[in-house]
């Protein structure tokens, strides 16, 4: 069954995707696989190791599971301070 996921893009990723957010239907199960799918979809080429993903406002590990209805935040390389 396909899952419905809300994806929110930040900073560089928002500019590259050309959108703030979108709802996608996907069959992937892990955060890492979702990241790959989104990279391909929007031609993002930042390496996974420099990026972060949050699910429902919590930072997630790359092997975390994606569930139907999740809101996923896609963070490009950060530069605080």
């Amino acid at each position, binding site marked *: 069954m396909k899952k419905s996921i809300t994806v929110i893009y930040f900073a560089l990723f928002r500019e590259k995707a050309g959108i703030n957010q979108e709802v996608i239907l996907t069959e992937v199960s892990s955060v890492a696989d979702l990241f790959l799918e989104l990279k391909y979809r929007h031609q993002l080429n930042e390496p996974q190791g420099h990026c972060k993903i949050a699910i429902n406002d919590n930072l997630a590990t790359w092997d975390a599971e994606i569930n139907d209805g999740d809101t996923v935040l896609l963070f*490009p390389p*950060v530069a*605080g301070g």
Partner: protein
Amino acid sequence: MKVISTEIDIASCSKLLVNSRAGALAGFEGWVRNHNDGHNVLQLEYEVYNPIAESEGDKIIQEAKTQYDILDAYCVHRSGLLEIGDCAVWVGVSAAHRNEAFDACRYIINNIKTRLPIWKKEYYQNGDSGWVNCERCAAEK
């Protein structure tokens, strides 16, 4: 940990750490520089995802309190448009003795720079702009 869109009032932040058992306050202020990687920077924009920036910032402060013998710590980060010389981030740590205060302050700012969802867009003199990626941060650490 607080993310704010107005000027950081360092004296007021510092007062939050006042403690009669404290002998030392180590502080760090990050200022907007007029240059970065050879470019002349005119201004800077911070995009911050506040909910996670604040919760992850609180987690970093908690880690510092566990790892170092300190009394208190606090951090404020700006969001939005900043000019050269503006204070972008302040970290303060109070402790009985200074070595712990310095070590914890460094731990906090190092982690603030690499773990919080904060992005920096620089606007250059030549009209270009660009997002600063984390490669420089990693080298600086």
